[in-house]
């Protein structure tokens, strides 16, 4: 029972990280109509810089700050150099160009930090366990991730729904030409949104450092899951991304933990061992397929954010 609750919490934690990735992606797509495969690279850059600075200075917060700064700078750089031309283009061109970016960044981290994975320890002030519910100790680090993620979700919601900047973002999502005609500096707005998305991705990367391996290409598996999340949630919807991210996270974690034992009941141990893991990895995609079957536009289809 405790194990089950732990798995669900792991799922929530993973979901919250997916949300950070998905929120950036969905904002960028919803407002700039840009499909950005290199979003995962920003996640990777966040992880690498944090790991590198942390091991050099021993300070987690320095690592965090450096990671966010680096990602925002890189994000703004590629927005100006590459994306400004891509906004007008075909989605195929965007996919190909950002694919090129991925190849470049994956190789760059190998050049800068070598091919072996980097190690990033859990920061010492978060290395204990916390009793969330009586009798259920859970790693403090993971609790922190969940807390930060929920806080950011709330913050995003407040900014977008309640502030003037948020209003501009929502307006940009529905009609960018009009927004420009009204005098808003659309170029600046786009760059800001992109910077925000990059920061969110990097934050997810920093959080992931101690839990997942920091290696070249780490961004892509998360990226694809983020795609699954926003497809399920509805492209352009932050609320959809949040709900879908938690759903995907929990389904994935509980699936991996419980599918094999579950199958053993029906199939016997060895068959379950052979096919369980493979089936578990398919669960999320089956979920996506099921959602799409019923609602091809996702759970919360775009109508602003």
């Amino acid at each position, binding site marked *: 029972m405790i194990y089950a609750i732990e798995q669900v919490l792991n799922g929530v934690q993973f979901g919250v990280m997916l949300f950070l990735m998905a929120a950036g992606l969905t904002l960028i797509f919803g407002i700039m109509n840009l499909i950005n495969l290199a979003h995962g690279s920003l996640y990777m850059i966040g992880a690498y810089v944090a790991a590198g600075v942390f091991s050099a200075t021993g300070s987690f917060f320095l690592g965090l700050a450096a990671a966010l700064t680096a990602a925002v700078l890189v994000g703004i750089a590629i927005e100006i150099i590459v994306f400004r031309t891509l906004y007008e283009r075909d989605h195929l061109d965007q996919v190909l160009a950002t694919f090129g970016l991925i190849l470049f960044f994956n190789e760059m981290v190998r050049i800068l930090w070598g091919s072996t994975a980097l190690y990033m320890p859990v920061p010492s002030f978060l290395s204990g366990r916390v009793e969330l519910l009586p009798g259920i100790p859970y790693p403090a680090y993971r609790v922190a991730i969940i807390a930060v993620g929920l806080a950011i979700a709330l913050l995003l919601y407040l900014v977008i729904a309640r502030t003037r900047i948020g209003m501009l973002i929502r307006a940009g999502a529905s009609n960018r030409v009009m927004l420009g005609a009204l005098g808003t500096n659309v170029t600046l707005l786009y760059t800001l949104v992109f910077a925000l998305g990059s920061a969110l991705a990097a934050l997810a990367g920093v959080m992931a450092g101690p839990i997942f391996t920091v290696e070249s290409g780490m961004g*892509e598996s998360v990226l694809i899951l983020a795609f699954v999340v926003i497809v399920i949630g509805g492209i352009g919807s932050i609320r959809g991304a949040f709900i879908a991210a938690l759903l995907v996270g929990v389904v994935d974690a509980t699936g991996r933990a419980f599918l094999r034992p579950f199958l053993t009941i029906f199939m016997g141990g060895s068959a379950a061992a052979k*096919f369980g893991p493979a089936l578990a990895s398919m669960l999320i995609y089956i979920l996506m397929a099921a959602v799409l079957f019923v609602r*091809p536009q996702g759970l919360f289809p775009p109508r602003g954010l």
Partner: protein
Amino acid sequence: MGGRYGAIFIVLAALALVPAVATVAEAPFYIGLFARIMVFAIAALSLDLILGYGGLVSFGHAAYFGIGAYAVGILSYYGVTDGIAHFATAFFAAAIAALFIGFVSLRTSGVYFIMITLAFGQMVYFVGIGLNEYGGDDGLNIARHSNFGAALDLDRPIVLYYFTYALLLLFLLLGNRIVRSRFGMLLQGVKSNERRMIALGFPTFRYKLAAFVMAGAVCGIAGALFANLTLFVSPSIMHWTRSGEIMMMVILGGLGSQVGPVFGAAAYLILESVLSRLTEHWQAVLGPLLILVVLFSKTGLYGLFAVSRRRSG
């Protein structure tokens, strides 16, 4: 048009002569290289049908390649070496996968479609990794080539080369007929203006699905050939970056051109081969190169390389 056919003829003739030239020059390595180029040309050709002609940006095409290769691998693992069994299984397994994936994905379009095909492609990759029985992450060795009897001994590199060549010719010919047929016109119409096609009364979904399945099945054959070429399969051939590579080959050769995929596969593999000899970090060069080409051609790669072949005749 005459010039075009001339180029096609030269390329096909050149490919036919490679084994002879390589043997005389005592450089059998080239037989393997060009066989590999032809295998990927078939894969690229299959993607060109739905991407170049149908406008469907499917980013998970490597999955079918992998399924075809694993069909050969898994059957061999269980001691089944019959060539027809191998290739038929590769064909139908890939077709069925494409049927399921296409059925769900084609309900969407645009960016959703790209993301979903990417996701499903990755799903197949993870399934491959999860199948510990068949090597999982480490891959699976294949003991013997597909057995087509004494007449067609694929153990001999030159025979395998011409077998691949024959299949390439077959698919080029079939492709040529298909794109000029009513089915082909319909597909191109969907790419040009799907809304109009629907308004005209075409139930476009079933045709897109048919094309998607055909493309997957042919890519499965390419995978089966690949398994024979390397006698080894691993999930890495299904990784999403492989889908990107196949797409690049289609683009380099020219979207919606019938022989383009052959040029594209050759260009990509040769470029990769040359670059990787210059530096181990060749991807850091290839990436920006690709970006530059996309950014600086006025109409994008689409316009730069796409050969306008909208005439039905």
